[in-house]
């Protein structure tokens, strides 16, 4: 295994994180908060250590699939461990594991929190907490791909490990250009949201943090009631933008190229909006039948559905109090997740679509034996490898899910809490139901359960295999032996 290259990538990731820590420092300066000082040593330390690690570029810059996955998974762990230091050192989150949980939740854009009183945090801490969403949304390594020089296939192996979806499509021939376009679209949409939120009378700080939270489909609220106290205008703007960030970014690229027909024909995007509309309709019908006012119900239903399907996790209402059907719809949406190639988590709409088509293909083969059919997406036959990959993903997903529920049930909390806590972290959403509902938090779990949930968040964000690979012994077999040639 090319350990030197993994060291190099990790070094760069650390240095970039250190550089981005300048932003909360700035926030601390603006608000004159002493807690901001804690960012300075951590940022400088990250820059120094990262700089040293990335100082010497390895002679062999090839990254194979294994190195790509390991480098990605390790860099996310290192980023989280370093990113949590300011919270812990400043004493605002007194327990180290809690700080790790909060930061992992930030980078993986989960938005699950252990804090019961968010408003007690100093502003620079809140800013950093929300900014981790923005960084984690598109991925730090995708950012690095714009800067680093390495052989072509190697870039692809890194990008594939970090990008969500059954198969990674490039918008442009080169990974570097693709990464740049993705970040430009990401930045453009974020800025647009900030402007629209400002227009709604939101203070700049709040607008920035809310935009980071929705851009990464993260969901750290900056108020104790998440977004319930915001004006209807702001709630609608947020609803629309989280839906936009949950859409496959290829859609925007096609729009930019003015290929309207191709963009609007994207099967996944159409299905995604269809699911959103249907879910909103079901919830509105049920709530209105219970006698609620239509206007507010529509807004709440749309907000909650958008927030859950895109795996953001903002809330404007305590949906824990909703009737069972509506609650169940939300739980189902947790698993569906956003589109591939977006910043959202979950199983992804395209995978669901492929799985359903595979099922129908199987059914068809019972009716007409020996009939040949290919599973298609966007009118193109899918490679057998992709279909197989999706099936294996689902199996692994269910295994990890079941095991996690089992492990955190050791805490003794009720079934719904445990089930939705794992669903909410594994799918990178944030709030679940009952104890971990929108008004609750994850603070009451034991340290062991928190560690399991941290693992779930990372595994969910990186789509299982890069993280699972770290725990698979053959990955490390022979990794630390110097080959005879390397020694010579």
């Amino acid at each position, binding site marked *: 295994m090319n350990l030197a290259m993994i060291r190099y990538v990790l070094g760069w990731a650390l240095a970039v994180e250190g550089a981005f820590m300048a932003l909360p420092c700035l926030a601390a300066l603006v608000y004159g908060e002493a807690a901001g000082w804690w960012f300075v040593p951590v940022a400088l330390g990250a820059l120094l250590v990262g700089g040293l690690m990335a100082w010497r570029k390895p002679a062999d810059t090839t990254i194979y699939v294994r190195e790509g996955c390991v480098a990605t998974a390790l860099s996310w762990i290192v980023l989280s461990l370093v990113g949590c230091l300011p919270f812990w050192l400043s004493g605002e989150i007194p327990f180290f594991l809690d700080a790790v949980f909060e930061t992992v939740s930030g980078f993986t854009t989960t938005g699950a929190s252990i804090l019961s009183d968010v408003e007690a945090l100093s502003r620079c801490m809140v800013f950093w907490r929300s900014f981790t969403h923005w960084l984690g949304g598109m991925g730090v390594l995708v950012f690095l791909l714009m800067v680093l020089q390495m*052989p*072509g*296939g190697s*870039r*692809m192996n890194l990008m594939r490990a970090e990008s969500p979806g059954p198969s990674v499509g*490039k918008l*442009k*021939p*080169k*990974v*570097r*250009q693709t990464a740049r376009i993705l970040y430009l679209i990401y930045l453009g949409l974020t800025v647009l949201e900030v402007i629209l939120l400002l227009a709604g009378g939101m203070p700049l700080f709040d607008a920035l943090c809310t935009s980071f939270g929705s851009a990464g489909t993260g969901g750290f609220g900056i108020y104790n009631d998440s977004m319930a106290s915001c004006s209807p205008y702001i709630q609608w703007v947020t609803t629309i933008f989280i839906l936009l960030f949950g859409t496959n970014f290829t859609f925007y690229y096609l729009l930019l190229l003015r290929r309207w027909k191709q963009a609007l024909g994207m099967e996944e995007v159409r299905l995604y909006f269809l699911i959103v509309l249907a879910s909103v309709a079901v919830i509105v019908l049920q709530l209105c039948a219970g006698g609620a006012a239509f206007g507010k119900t529509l807004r709440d239903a749309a907000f909650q559905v958008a927030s859950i399907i895109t795996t953001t996790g903002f809330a404007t209402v305590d949906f824990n109090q909703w009737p069972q059907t509506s609650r169940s719809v939300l739980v189902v949406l947790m698993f569906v997740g956003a589109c591939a190639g977006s910043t959202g988590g979950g199983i992804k709409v395209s995978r669901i679509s492929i799985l359903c088509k595979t099922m129908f293909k199987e059914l068809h083969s019972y009716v007409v034996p020996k009939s040949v059919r290919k599973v298609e997406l966007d009118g193109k036959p899918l*490679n057998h490898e992709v279909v197989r990959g999706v099936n294996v993903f689902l199996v692994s997903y269910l295994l990890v899910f079941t095991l996690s529920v089992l492990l955190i049930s050791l805490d003794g909390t009720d079934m719904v809490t445990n089930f939705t806590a794992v669903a909410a972290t594994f799918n990178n959403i944030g709030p679940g139901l009952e104890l971990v509902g929108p008004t609750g938090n994850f603070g009451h779990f034991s340290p062991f359960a928190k560690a399991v949930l941290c693992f779930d968040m990372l595994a969910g964000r990186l789509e299982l295999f890069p993280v699972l690979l770290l725990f698979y012994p053959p990955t490390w077999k022979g990794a630390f032996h110097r080959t005879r040639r390397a020694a010579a």
Partner: protein
Amino acid sequence: MARRKAGAARDGLNIILVGCGKVGVSLVEKLSQEGHNITVVDRRAAAVSAVTDLYDVSGVVGNGASYRVQQEAGIDEADILISVTASDELNLLCCTVAKKAGNCATIARVRTPDYSEDADYLKEKLGLAMVINPEREAALAIARLLCLPTALSVTSFAGGHAEMVRIRIPQGSKLDGRCLRELGKELVGPVLVCAVERSGQVYIPDGGFQLASGDALTFICPSRDSKQFLGRMGFETHQVHNALLIGGSKAAYYLARRLLAVGVQVRIIEADMARCEELSCLLPKAIILHGDGTDADLLREAGILQAEAVVPLTGIDEENILLTLHARAVAPGAKAVTKINRIMYPEAVAQLDLGSVVCPKHLTTDAILAFVRSRGASKNSNIEALMHMFDNRVEAIEFLAGEGSPLLDIPLRELALRDHLLIACLFRNGRTLIPGGDDCIHAGDRIIVVTTHTGLRELAEILA
């Protein structure tokens, strides 16, 4: 509408490559190293994903000649379309469609004699920028070697007026232990030593460099002087009188035609009767033998022991290599040239005592690369030819100096050239000269540069 943006050169050109075969992959490797934006097209999904997994390029699965597929591959913004599928017809069709669909330069690989005879006509009528025929290029390279059998390789520059020749210095040669500077006094003709390979290392030598036996020496000189020089240094310089070609492939046809034209007797062994008959009509002066070329008895009967040159041209590399080794064993005096199409293991092949090796894939790649580099460069210089030597560590590039190049009319001694770079040869008004410090470059000159800096795109880049 001006589709091509001015700044496109720096970001690399947009290139569509149809066909992910041997040549396709080797082109992708070289072109993506030079920073171009490449989209590959092939019918076989597996071939496309193999390339996109290995290199930083995007891929489209489909028929490259279809307008829709070309659209998807981005023909609107493409600068160059290169078609190297197995079928000549498909290649020509791809280029024709691309020419109409987008505003790009097109390059087609055409191998069958049916089309390549009228390559110039096709090029003009179909608006192709380049028609490349690897089999013919390989045949010409082999023919040059048979005309100068002592050489390990012979490459022609300046439209055939200058030659770059590589030889190995044998034990007890006049060159053994000599300094290049003292050699200079004996050399009456215009000859320049550009590179020496010694135990795996490549040197671009200066005057103090001392030669030794076993070195592989590369020199450049006007084509007609190379024999004279080698003769003076005690090398055998006669061209071969007869040649035995094993396998009646397209390359064999091109080679036989070329050799017959300069008066070499040609025998061709071919296993397929129909092909034998076809060849005997096409090449009435050649002797066509029907039989299995890998049969040692048949080879003896065909006169391998008397042959002055043996060239295995079967479609299978392994057979070619074994046939060469056999020929060198039974007929040590004969010149053997091995054609290798795939070369998956260059290190292993280098260990074998094969003598001269010709690789059509590399010839094609180099020719296309020369074209692509010129496209990316400014207007005041142009790359006419390009050759990779010593495992791609050294490049020999022929530039055409245009009006407005910043190097014109300055004595060479005043130019601050890069290290490890040599201006090996100037070609002006039909004359080849080996430049000294007082010579200047004029507009319209062709300049051959030998350097270890790979990737030069224009003449001005030879300056430090």
